[in-house]
């Protein structure tokens, strides 16, 4: 598998669902990047009449929330936080999951047993309940939320990586590396890991999507960080208004759905693009 990043990206653009996904994500990234320029005062300004419906006041095209904050500004800043939480949580769980999976798969034996039983134990805990418990006990701050999400989502990556390592460690190229005296560390990170990147990359896009949803769900239940404006924060302030102002929850919900859909589309496309067997079939 010697596909360079550049050609993967080009093939992703040619892939219909990949293209749609990338476009949506590009838009979300653009929203979060431009938030500071378009709304320099931040998302918290209580600038409008509370509960102004969309389209009523031209200054607030999407209306205001229960406290009179601009929904557009909130959505732009929310994109920033939601993406950041998603990416950070995915990154942390990728690191933990890859390390655990690599060590377990490469060394096998009792180490494998211990690590996999730990993974099993983690997987038996309903992940969202565990996240609620962690945030509830430690307190709601952005870093706690990121860690809570990472803690409940690494086992999936660990299992994936371990399976690939179990398979690859018996291959000749790994055996020859061992014979020429290469250190375990170099074999794991320099030789085997690059060969099982494809499934990791594919699942990481799903991981980001799950993390964004988890953050929003926690915030919806009132366990979000009240000091940052994420889409979940908008949801949770809009929730009591569900009967009288559905737009307050509808807009962040649409943003969430689109972003998560886009990430899943990219995941699917990556799966197609990176899977050598599918490539052969097509050509």
């Amino acid at each position, binding site marked *: 598998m010697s596909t360079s990043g550049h050609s993967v990206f080009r093939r992703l653009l040619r892939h219909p669902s990949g293209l749609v996904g990338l476009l949506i994500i590009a838009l979300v990234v653009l929203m979060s990047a431009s938030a500071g320029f378009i709304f320099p005062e931040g998302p*918290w*300004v*209580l600038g409008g009449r*509370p509960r102004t419906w969309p389209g009523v006041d031209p200054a607030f095209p999407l209306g205001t929330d*229960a*406290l*009179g904050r601009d929904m557009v500004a909130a959505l732009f800043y929310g994109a920033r936080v939601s993406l950041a939480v998603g990416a950070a949580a995915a990154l942390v769980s990728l690191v933990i999951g890859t390390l655990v999976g690599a060590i377990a798969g490469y060394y096998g034996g009792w180490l494998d047993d211990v690590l996999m039983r730990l993974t099993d134990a983690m997987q038996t805990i309903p992940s969202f309940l565990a996240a609620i418990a962690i945030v*509830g*006990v430690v*307190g*709601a701050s952005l870093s706690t939320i990121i860690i809570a999400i990472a803690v409940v989502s690494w086992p999936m990556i660990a299992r994936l990586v371990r399976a690939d390592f179990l398979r690859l460690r018996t291959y000749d190229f790994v055996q020859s590396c061992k014979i020429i005296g290469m250190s375990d560390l170099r074999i794991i990170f320099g030789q085997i890991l690059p060969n099982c990147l494809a499934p990791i990359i594919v699942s990481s896009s799903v991981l980001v999507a799950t993390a964004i949803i988890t953050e929003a769900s926690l915030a919806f239940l*009132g*366990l979000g960080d*009240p*000091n940052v404006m994420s889409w979940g924060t908008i949801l949770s*302030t809009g929730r*009591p*208004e569900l*009967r*009288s102002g559905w737009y307050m929850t509808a807009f962040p919900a649409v943003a969430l759905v689109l972003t998560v859909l886009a990430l899943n589309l990219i995941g699917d496309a990556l799966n197609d693009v990176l899977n050598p067997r599918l490539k052969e079939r097509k050509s």
Partner: protein
Amino acid sequence: MTQKFPTVGRRSFLAGLAASTALPLIAMPGKLWAQEPRAGGTLRTPAWPAPSVLNSAISTAGPETFLGPKMFDGLLAYDFGMVAKPQLATDWQMSDDGLRITFNLREGVTWHDGEPFTAHDVAFTFMEVLKVHHGRGRTTFGDLLAVETPDDLTAIFVLETPNPAMMRALDSRESPILPAHIYEGTDILDNPANTAPIGTGPFKLAEYEIGSYVVLVKNPDYWEEGYPLLDRMVIQYVPDSATRAAMLESGQADAVFLNMIPAQDIVRLDEQPDFTMDTRGFEGMPSAQQMDFNLDNPILANVMVRHAIAHAIDPEWITQNVWYGLGTAGKTPLHVDQVEYYTTEGVPEYPYDLDRANELLDEAGYPRGDNGTRFELMLDPSPWGTESITASAYVREQLRQVGIDVTVRTQDFGVFVTTVWTDRAHDLVLYTVNLGVDPTIGTQRFYWSESYRPGSAFTNGAHYMNPEVDALLEAAQVETDPQARRDQYAEFQRIVMRDLPVMPITNIHGANIASTRVHDHTVDALGVLGGFTRLWIEE
């Protein structure tokens, strides 16, 4: 009908007038049509949480205080404005030194099991139950030395010091009279009658399914001729507030009391022709939202900083937008419903003014730094309900405008209480609290130096120490002259608002929402926490 309407909306005010037969019938929309009270019918109401016992003498929890007065009577009841009126006591006299109060009891009252009610029941209830087992009774009746019973229909309270607050705590919700013949000589907390009550009240228990529902039926032998009007009352325990609102809207319930559905739903339903909101009858539990400054923080110890923060926050805005207008902006440490003592005369005000706030902070010696920030504060909102958390978002943004960087810390209720009142790790704390039927009972604890007791929740969390205030509070505790007591509390309000250890935010108005078919659930100060003797339902 000369009732006081301290906090009525226009519509319920008209409805109240329409219901009084003193007014001639005039053409009014159907909602306000005056009718003669009708006996009979069933009231269905959802509530939550479910009670653990059915006796408000041993539990001060919400469900018990709602149910208790339906089955038990008190010595007194209170008209709007907390004016005492007879219930089991027909009249009463206080000795000149305020140390002996004689109650003459009603004749011919019987318990639900047919036994006669006597002065012995009164003595037993106060001395053995309320003084010992009631959450607030231990304090309220702490000075009560004995209840003398010279005959079956006279009870004389003997006090160690005069206790004017006690005279506001003798109703069926706060101090229900229990049957001595059932409870005497038993373990009171374990007595089976706690879940199968025998009272003298207007309703009797018919069915009780723990955690699910309670059915009460009319007491045909009630001492008040012709009352209660209702035949039956069904209280169903429904955990989800949206379901409770839907039950009312779909006609499966007739009324939802005590804010058991969210404020925005109450306001929304009130706008519909079939429902009426009533905010009267919450004088027995005046609740307020307030914000304590931790005076142990050197920045907040500076009174100019506290004044600046008060200028930067508009309580009226919070009242309108967080409480949906179901409240009055806080102006003094007391609640507007504490009618007798509440005053704004000569009480310092802090009108919303960001420029003034900035000036004060500059003067106080906290100029803006390079990033526009003067200093940082931690704000702990109470997780009880959602209003304190919502209001904290407003406070945080307002203080940002004047250069104070506030971090909001939301925690589980238990951790919140420990953080603030045990660890004292807070700077600002925003919470809701019951200010008490009398300032001695609910308000004093936030300002009295002796109630600075780390480890004990909802006490003097500001760590406010002012000998002048202490003297006023202690004097008012035992003052029997009504005018002198009013003056003491007026002075207290002026000093506290000048020192501002606690910023009043909103005087919350409770609300009941009922179908327009339901009438007269609130006829006095106790409102729906009374006996519902006058409540009637159209066919």
